[in-house]
């Protein structure tokens, strides 16, 4: 019998707040695929690349603490947010490669009885499905092929760059200039993957408050690219990209001078649709840009 895949799930904050549908669909898909997810209930926010700007050392300690709890369960940590993936992987990289820094961090963690060892791997649910579960096995599970849809993959920066780090973390980097994981996933599920220039570009999320004009232009261009490529909807593995593309279409439309609204699904929702999950299980009503094709 095949070994059951088990992961320590680092939900991140967004899946517990602004994208509840992402958490629901993660669990729905895991159940269909027989993947066991043990939620890291002690985990804190990864700092989302902003706490790091304010207090780098504090962010290292908090991220190391999160990894400690995956280690204590003896599991690979699985993330469902590109930014959580990057910040956690970056912490692991820095601590594993700098004994002095690791010692400083561990000195703090010892105060609460923890120790970062570096024994847990960190991967994103997208790669858990593609690399660990396997696309061939996934294909056998498809009950509703997505054949009538043109789907625009939107990768999100923090899963694909820096590629060296991604390679080190889960042994297989995307090609940042020509990524293929989401495209392969779409094809495996029977859909048509559309190609467009912005698929590996930034959505602008992280500068939305500080640099709203830049952020709106980036969001607008991404939505416009997918629309011009004749996509019926977009799909992304990152809840932050999802939020930006799903909710900010109005500002984005003003910035690029065009109406740029379209449905943006989470990667898990797309997989769930093909596996026969119900719209309710996938939380499809929790979208601002309505998902009206199911």
């Amino acid at each position, binding site marked *: 019998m095949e070994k059951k895949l088990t992961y320590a799930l680092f939900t991140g904050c967004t899946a517990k707040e602004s994208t509840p549908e992402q958490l629901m669909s993660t669990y729905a898909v895991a159940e269909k695929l027989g993947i066991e997810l043990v939620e890291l209930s002690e985990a804190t926010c990864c700092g989302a690349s*902003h706490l790091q700007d304010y207090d780098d050392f*504090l962010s290292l300690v908090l991220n190391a603490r999160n990894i400690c709890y995956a280690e204590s369960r003896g599991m690979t940590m699985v993330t469902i947010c590109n930014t959580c993936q990057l910040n956690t992987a970056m912490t692991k990289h820095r601590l594993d490669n700098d004994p002095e820094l690791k010692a400083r961090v561990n000195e703090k*963690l010892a105060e609460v009885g923890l120790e970062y060892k570096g024994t847990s791997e960190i991967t994103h649910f997208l790669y858990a499905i593609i690399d660990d579960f396997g696309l061939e096995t996934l294909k056998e599970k498809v009950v509703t092929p997505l054949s009538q849809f043109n789907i625009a993959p939107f990768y999100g920066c923090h899963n694909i760059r820096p590629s060296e780090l991604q390679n080190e973390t889960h042994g297989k980097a995307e090609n940042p200039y020509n990524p293929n994981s989401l495209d392969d996933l779409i094809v495996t599920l029977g859909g048509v993957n559309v190609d467009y220039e912005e698929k590996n570009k930034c959505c602008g999320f992280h500068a939305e408050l500080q640099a709203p004009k830049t952020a709106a232009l980036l969001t607008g261009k991404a939505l416009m690219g997918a629309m011009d490529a004749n996509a019926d909807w977009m799909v992304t593995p990152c809840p932050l990209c999802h939020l930006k593309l799903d909710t900010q279409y109005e500002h984005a439309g003003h910035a690029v001078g065009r109406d740029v609204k379209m449905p943006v699904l989470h990667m898990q929702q797309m997989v769930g649709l093909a596996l026969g999950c119900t719209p309710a299980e996938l939380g499809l009503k929790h979208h601002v840009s309505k998902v009206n094709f199911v």
Partner: protein
Amino acid sequence: MTTITTQTITFNVFRFNAETDYLPHYKTIEMEVTSEEVVLDILNRIKWDVDGSFSYRRSCRHGICGACAIKVNGKGVLACKERMNDLIELFGTELTLEPLSIKRAVKDMIIDKEDFWKKHEQVKPYLIDEIDEHPESENLVTPKEEAQLLEADYCIQCGLCHYSCPSLENNESYIGPAAFAAAYRFNADVRDKATLDRLDIVNAPDQGVWDCVKCFECQEVCPKEVNPIEKITKLHNQVFENGVAINNVATRHAVGFAHSIKKHGLLDEAELVRYSEGTVPMLMKHGKVGFKMFKVGKVVMPWNMPKSDKLDEVKALIKSSSTVKF
């Protein structure tokens, strides 16, 4: 012994002459490419064998002068360093050769880099100190002090990061990754005395480090592993460490994370926006979107805010591990 292989490649070559052309066009050229060639070999062969008017820059042919930087299928490369085989593996046999910035094209692959040099100049990329005209001994820097520069010193000013940066592409005022790396380089130098001056420049809204969208394009593209975004993060840190953070949306946004984590472990997303923007501006700027999100169940009410388990532990760690104050 490795055998040399050849492949037929279709090149779409950007052609433009600002003196005579209104619009650029792309010329299709098919060529046999051998596994030993780099992009610069192709540029040379286009000029020598196809069209003598084809223009590009090159100088050292060793990846150290930065002159030959162009884009191939959107990827910034040093033409003299980038192997054709790697590009073919990445993109297949149809390759588009373009200058680093189409809107700054002067002739074919040659661009006007004036904006790049101006941004550089803006951050005072030189050592500033009172110089003793008659020093009695050398001005020694320890290896540990030198190590603080990280790789910021390796920049060859090729412009690959600058012309790959989406923040800069969408906002001409943004100073950009290469100049920020230079600012960090001199701020990290123990002999320099102008840290606060430079922080003033890189801290300013619209042009400064807060407008970085954190896409990591600059780290990915840099052929010298300067890792500009890491230096940008260090500049952010220096702003707080030196106590020169301006109390504005950008800084409050960063600090708000610490507050939220202390309170809930997780981030209180709505509260973070309120903390960063202030209540009234938040409602004015985000009220409409917030209401739409609320209607579809994308907003958590304060009384339902999820919390991390073992919050006492988190609080204790924040207390003992915090290194800066705002």
